[in-house]
């Protein structure tokens, strides 16, 4: 049992200490985990492709599953990573059930306008840039960069060949770099003094 003084300093404690407190059925400690990682999880789900309300529902479910299975956390990696894996699997399960089109070859009906270096589309932030990718590319690159899953793990989760995963990620990275890099024709503004 943690001392009361320790409970008052929850924001100062590390994730590992807070998880240990949660294992003693400390509700305040779990609320602190939600406070700390809620935004990260909601962002991760949105970047995977979940819509706003859906993403929040799944984030909530992920936290509840996490609370249920907290004893299975092995403290062998960042807690946020473990949480993201739970949420990712939750989302993928839903996607497999409801949006089977995501993994089919013919995506023409669902694809946004292709991004090429010629059409000069630029985004202000990562989320807007991700919105320009094909759903499966977006999923792969987010699982790799945000979910910290290896290519093989992604292939296992999505049940698609490893080579396909690699090509999806490569194409997504190329497009993201093209969209997010500053435009070469943008030159620094020249201030006129007026004199």
């Amino acid at each position, binding site marked *: 049992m943690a001392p009361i003084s320790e409970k008052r300093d929850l924001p100062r404690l590390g994730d590992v200490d807070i998880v240990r407190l949660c294992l003693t059925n400390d*509700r305040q400690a*779990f*609320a602190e985990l*939600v*406070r700390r990682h*809620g*935004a*990260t999880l*909601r*962002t*991760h789900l*949105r*970047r995977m492709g979940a819509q706003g309300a859906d993403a*929040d529902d799944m*984030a*909530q479910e992920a*936290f*509840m*599953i996490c*609370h*249920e*299975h907290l004893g*299975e956390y092995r403290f062998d990696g960042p807690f946020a990573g473990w949480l993201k*894996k*739970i949420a990712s*699997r939750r989302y993928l399960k839903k996607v497999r059930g409801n949006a089977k089109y995501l993994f089919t070859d013919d995506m023409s009906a669902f694809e946004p306008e292709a991004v090429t270096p010629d059409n000069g589309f630029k985004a202000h*932030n*990562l*989320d807007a840039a991700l919105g320009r990718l094909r759903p499966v590319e977006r999923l792969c690159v*987010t699982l790799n*960069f*945000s979910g910290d899953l290896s290519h093989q793990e992604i292939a296992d989760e999505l049940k698609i060949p490893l080579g396909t995963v690699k090509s999806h990620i490569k194409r997504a*990275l190329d497009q*993201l*770099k093209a969209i*997010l*890099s500053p435009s070469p024709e943008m030159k620094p503004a020249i201030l006129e003094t007026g004199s």
Partner: protein
Amino acid sequence: MKDSELSDLFATPARFDDTEAFEGRVMRGLQVKLWMRQWLVVLAGFVGGLYALAQFVRLPEWTSGGKVAYAETFHKAAVDTDNTLRVGIEFVDVARQSFGNLLNQSGQYLTFMQTPVFFWLSFSLCLAFLGLYYAYSQEETL
């Protein structure tokens, strides 16, 4: 742009205005889940207890209304007013008979609960619950 810069972008969460509301929502959901689970256990215990009671406690020749029993009980209670333990026991007896009569009058539930049909019905229901619980736990496996 380098891969590491992209990693940094991915590591930066978006800002949400409703952080506190989301936290409250998660904690409420958790509370409801725990509450429902507890009450499911209580309900299962109650049904199981009732079933066990119906199996072991036999109350032959119940009379609807129980006028005779009431009159006798109240007479004894009036005679021995200072004997609180006895009065308490008799009160429980009245309550038991009233409850038994109520059950008897409303559809012969206890009789039904002592039949093999009820046993197989409750047994299969329990099995179904266990099956559902197992399926759900498999689904939640991380």
